[in-house]
């Protein structure tokens, strides 16, 4: 088992946001989490990544057999859990190449800088090294560039589980194809698992999830296969689908 989330309750500023989330992800498995805005998807992602403002009041997070419920952000990352942010911050003064090197465990300021690793990673996400290496981290990046910068940093970390928080938002169709293609390739080559948080099915066409979960009001309320749930979501929308599911039991 890659990840096991058991009865997770989370509050922010004493407001309960997750109300008993149960979720499992197997090795090499891709799991999609969908749902309307404010259903708790991003809270779940950032709680799994260890962000301290998300206060876990109940439940456990087991990652590769270890309880990481109260581990710090960087320790989870070191253990193999990586997150691609929906809106990554732009940071002046730090170059993309330095951040990729750091994510790969290389200190770009003390090592004799070998850019080979960074170039290889950038090519994986279709970013021409000569154009992007010296750019400041996410500064002036388009939506698609930001998301590719996220993936580049994540690939450098060589994670075992990737949480993708709306990797498809603000991304045009060409960038989506690049993101989807390079992700699929990485996941398959490394038997890496993924949790894909999204509103749309487009990215899922590339990632072919084994399971789809629908969240509402801080819980997973409906689960099924991609083939089963996606047509229903598209036909009915989340609300009617969830109502139907709750009514039928």
């Amino acid at each position: 088992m890659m990840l096991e989330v058991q009865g997770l309750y989370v509050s922010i500023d004493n407001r309960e946001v997750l109300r008993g989330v149960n979720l499992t992800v197997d090795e090499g498995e891709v799991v999609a989490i969908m749902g309307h805005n404010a259903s708790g998807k991003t809270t779940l992602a950032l709680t799994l990544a260890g962000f301290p403002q998300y206060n876990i009041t109940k439940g456990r997070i087991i990652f590769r057999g270890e309880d990481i419920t109260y581990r710090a952000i960087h320790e989870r990352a070191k253990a193999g859990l990586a997150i691609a942010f929906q809106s990554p911050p732009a940071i002046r003064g730090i170059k993309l190449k330095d951040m990729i090197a750091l994510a790969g465990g290389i200190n770009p300021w003390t090592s004799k800088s070998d850019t080979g690793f960074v170039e290889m990673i950038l090519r994986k996400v279709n970013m021409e090294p000569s154009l992007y290496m010296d750019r400041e981290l996410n500064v002036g990046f388009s939506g698609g560039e930001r998301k590719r910068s996220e993936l580049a940093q994540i690939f450098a970390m060589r994670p075992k589980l990737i949480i993708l928080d709306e990797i498809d938002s603000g991304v045009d169709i060409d960038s989506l194809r690049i993101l989807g293609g390079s992700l699929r390739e990485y996941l398959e080559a490394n038997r890496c698992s993924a949790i894909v948080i999204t509103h749309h099915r487009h990215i899922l066409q590339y990632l072919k999830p084994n399971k789809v979960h629908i969240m509402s009001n801080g819980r997973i309320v409906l689960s099924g296969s991609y083939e089963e749930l996606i047509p229903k979501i598209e036909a009915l929308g989340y609300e009617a689908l969830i109502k139907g599911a709750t009514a039928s039991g």
Partner: protein
Amino acid sequence: MDEGWREKFKLRAMEALNKKAPFGNDVDLSRFTGQAVSRDAIPDDAPDKALEVGIELSEKKSGIYFQLDHSVILSQLASRIKGLELMPIDDALSKYDWLRQYYWKALSVEQDKYTATAELNRTKGYFIRALANEKITQPVQACLFIDSEGLLQAPHNIIIAEEGSEINIVTGCTVGDRAKRAAHLGITEFYVKKNAKVIFTMIHSWGEETYVRPRTGAIVEEGGVFISNYVLIKPVRDIQTYPTVYLLGRGAKAKFNSIIYASKDSIIDLGNRIILMEEGSSGESVFKVVATGTSKVYNRGQIIGQSRDTKGHLECRGMILCPTASITAIPELIAEHSDTELSHEAAIGKLQEEQLHYIMSRGIPPDEAISILVKGFLDPGLPGLPENLQAEIRRRLFIIDKSLTKGV
């Protein structure tokens, strides 16, 4: 050498010996001595210390001035660089009578007790001159090194960029381990002639008991450009400086870039004044500071617009890492003409948690993540600085932060 011509300056200096400076703590200079320990060789640790302030001490390199306490150890190597004159100031004053006209012209000897003391206790200094229309691309290096306990070092430097010339100067000031307590009163006068350009980068690395009162003035003529970069990374007891640039030619430009890492109980009071005297002149000052420990930092900036079509901008960006540190930004814009455009921008705040968590999410521990953010915030990117020196500053910012930000 006939020193009679200096008498008038000495007399004026005597009058100003007790004149306090308008800014900064009043330093009791009687605690320091002009007596240096006699030494005729470069101390073993000097090359490493010099390298910390960007100066590579090597007999093979050209264009180096190295002053140890009051002794000029190296300076003979300028001749290999075409269009450059570099020599101890006393040699230059003996060689060129006309140089006397530049002595105490860009600033006044009676400005305060520090200028006065510097004149009465002058201990060498350098003369750097770029000859007309010569573009000197290789950086000229000057290092002022204090190695004697309790020393008062007061060099007087004059830099002249003749018409149409360009020069890039890197100066480093530092102290050896033997000089725990010292005072540095460096006088520097810049003369940037018509269409000339001076890029001057000063890297300071003082000791925790060093008192520093540099006094600087610059006169920039028509079309001239004066760029002053200043880097201070290590702790210092107390530094206060407030250089003034007079843009007295049409279209003259001045720019100050300061990068400060204030740590321990350092008191750092840095300002600059740009006077836009002639039509089309412009000035800018960008001050970036990170404050930790119980350091106190003041950034004073003043721009005075006195002529038409002039522009000036002051910017202060501060990051405060400890609740016991403080940063004060005091910008002053003075418009003395209706067609001058002056602005200022100041932002001081803590480290952004969102950015810290973001870096940590890549597997980087918090202390290292803070250090990366601090380094990024201060990132030199200084104009005219050779890439190897930029890289060296980045590397040192990284190492120093790591040790100082632990437990923040």
